[in-house]
């Protein structure tokens, strides 16, 4: 391909150098997402390091988790 990719700038460094350990796959993230989101809504301080690391490094999974939070929190209790 002859067209160059977008130039790498300092803005991309955080994403390129993000520490995504401990490793969690997208499938594992999906399996746990419903449980994780319910816990986060019940307790915003809830810690789940593998899930939080994965969501920081995977925009698609993070978007899905955000939508699930919005959906659940918009439902009257």
């Amino acid at each position, binding site marked *: *391909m002859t*067209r*160059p*990719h*977008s*130039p*790498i*700038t*300092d803005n*991309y*460094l955080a*994403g*390129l*150098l*993000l*520490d*995504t*350990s*401990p*490793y969690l*796959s*997208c*499938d594992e993230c*999906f399996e746990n*997402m*419903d*449980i994780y*989101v*319910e816990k986060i809504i019940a307790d915003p301080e809830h*810690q789940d*390091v*593998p899930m939080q*690391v994965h969501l920081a*490094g*995977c*925009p*698609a999974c993070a*978007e*899905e988790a*955000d*939508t*699930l939070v*919005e*959906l*659940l929190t*918009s*439902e*009257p209790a």
Partner: protein
Amino acid sequence: MTLMQPVTSATEQPSDESWVADLTDPGPSGLAAQRTLHDLLLRAARLQVWRLRHQLPGAGSVDLEDLAQQAADDALMAVLSKLDTFEGRSRFTTWVYKFGILHAGVAVRRQAWRHREVPLFDSIHSPDPGSTPEAYAESSDLLRAVEAAITHDLTSHQRRVALALLVDHVPIDVLAERLSTSRNALYKTLHDARQRLRESLCASGHLDPAPHRSTP
């Protein structure tokens, strides 16, 4: 029907046990449960399509509703095929919603990239830093070290995937489809690439080793 901004409403829902029992019923109660399930999935799909609508600037409300309906149909099949994996560790409705959201997100991203070229680069392109002293000064030492590590320490596959996902912002499921692989496999490639870059930058003194993360 046109897609309006989703408004969720509380409706009387069966217990989690009743959901699973009704959905596996071959009779009329099974069909009724499937219709209710589809309504739940459509609610989730509409919300996700609505949130991502900026990715489809030419799409009207009918187009968006069609996407949501199709995603809900696909999600219904997925839920029914995985019903025996529901463990009751969350509410059934929460478990169901994530399928609607997943399928809607994939549908929007694929639609947005349907006619777009997916850039894949095996070599790094950087503007000539020596063209002007100002341009060179603006290119940080860390940035140049990262570019060198991308070129010398990543495999060809890792380089192509990392540049596509992180620099050209190709959605991971779109890239997976174009490369005939899975989102899982691409995320693992990206994880390994990031690890290699970090190791290289730590070895060259540009990065401090990360402290070990403890997990409960």
